């Protein structure tokens, strides 16, 4: 694979830069999982991060959300350096996430899981926002309304994905960082989920950093795409240019 052939200069994108990840390297013990990863995301953009299993996608989100300390590089969000901040500081800045494995509170009710999503908001803000947020979430995922009193671990895989996304939305974020929200969904549901993400971006003005193995589904809704390979950015480009590229099609989208 020859790299950078497909890369476009980052500056060709319009819009105000919201998130900038600059030369991030991260390690698990001595094993390097991210090598000098640089990417940016503009406001109200959907940026997809694709790559095969073990490429380092989840690691990148772990660094962004503050779960994993990186060794080099810088993360800037809305002009402010947030690298190395603890998860609670990151979510307060407006970055909410759906992590790998969902990390829901299984024995607690759907309602409690959602309410806990707003944990970092101050009391006043919670009062103002909670009802409207819940309404918005039920509007996006009507099934959650019927499941409100049920334990989270009794939901189906798809419903748990919705709940995890709902919980993230309760924090009133500016940017959503999602780790494989299509994982374990039936094909029909994947399309619905992607449509929902597009709606969040268009109607609610959110930006989305979308980690996916399901490249086909993600690229449909993405504005810009980065492809990770063994911890490095191999390819980047506008979604349409990547989609039109025959050799990339073969390599990453199964022909």
């Amino acid at each position, binding site marked *: 694979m020859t790299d950078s052939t497909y890369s476009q200069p980052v500056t060709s994108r319009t819009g105000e830069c919201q998130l900038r990840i600059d030369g991030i390297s991260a390690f698990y013990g001595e094993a390097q999982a991210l090598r000098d990863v640089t990417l940016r995301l503009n406001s109200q953009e959907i940026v997809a991060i694709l790559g095969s299993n073990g490429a380092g996608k989840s690691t990148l989100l772990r660094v962004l959300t503050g779960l994993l300390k990186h060794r080099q590089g810088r993360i800037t969000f809305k002009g402010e350096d947030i690298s190395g901040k603890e998860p*609670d500081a990151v979510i307060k800045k407006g970055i909410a996430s759906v992590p790998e494995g969902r990390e829901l509170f299984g024995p*607690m009710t759907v309602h409690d899981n959602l309410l806990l999503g707003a944990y970092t908001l101050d009391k006043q803000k919670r009062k103002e926002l909670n009802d409207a947020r819940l309404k918005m979430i039920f509007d996006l995922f009507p099934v959650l309304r019927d499941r409100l009193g049920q334990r989270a671990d009794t939901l189906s895989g798809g419903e748990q994905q919705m709940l995890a996304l709902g919980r993230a939305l309760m924090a009133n974020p500016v940017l959503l960082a999602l780790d494989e929200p299509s994982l374990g969904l039936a094909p029909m549901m994947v399309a619905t989920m992607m449509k929902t993400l597009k709606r969040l971006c268009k109607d609610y003005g959110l930006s989305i950093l979308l980690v996916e193995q399901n490249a086909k589904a993600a690229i449909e809704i993405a504005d810009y795409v980065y492809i990770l390979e063994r911890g490095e950015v191999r390819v980047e480009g506008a979604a349409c240019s990547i989609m039109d590229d025959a050799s990339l099609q073969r390599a990453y989208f199964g022909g």
Partner: protein
Amino acid sequence: MFISETIQYAISGITSGSIYAIVGICWSTVFLISGVLNFSTGEFVMLGGMLTWLFISWGFSLLPAIFFGVACTVIVAMLMERIVIRPVRYPSETTFLLITTAAGSVIRGIVLIACGSDTRHIEPFLGSSPIMIGDAVLLPQVIIVVSVLVLIAGGLVMFLDHTLFGKALRASSINQVGARLIGIKINRVRLFCFGLAGGMGAIAGIVIAPIEFTGYSVGLMEGLKGLVVALLGGWTIRGTVVAGLALGLLEGLGAGFISTGWKDALALFVMLTFLIIRTLDLTSIKKLVYRHE
């Protein structure tokens, strides 16, 4: 005669059972949040009683003495989390067992040096004129002990189920990664839970002191029995309350009708039986049998 004797033993059983239940809740409060079996839990009970006695002996009246006794124990518990537990580089159950046991010995030693080895007594809060139930004697202090259990257990359930911070505590005990990602500061939660356990343990030690005396070493048995009922109760509040009262009753009736010497042995016997039954791995036993055939 037999009936009032039984009532008398039951009253004494419920009294110590209430304390076991509170101490059991202290164990779970720390264990469920941080995975630490805190073997100095009993020392919080001792500190509550001894510090309150100390403040009273310095001339404080009862309520301020109780307040300072609880406050100091809370501070000790939080310092312990901050100084002894949090800095552990390679946390494991064995490490924590050793560390907390050692911390308990240190606390006991300091109290022994500072206050001596005599047993101490706090005057009953509401005097000692008994309420008679037939021929059985019910001390007002017993009513206080049972009410404190009800308040602590009930208050905790309300707090955990109906406040956002309480829900956050439950969430932290269920899934730490998830809790951190929604912005819960897990370190603060742990610190809070150590403090809470310290406070509840101290209160238990204070309200029981007028009935059972206090002294530098009372924490050992109280702590151990708290662990027994937390285990038996499946680390839940309701389960622990039931197990605490059951163990108390068993002891009270056993001590009354059989012999006082049996009292502590009974609790340890219940714990050992329970632990052995629970850890029995039936499949490996089968394998063992088959191998020898």
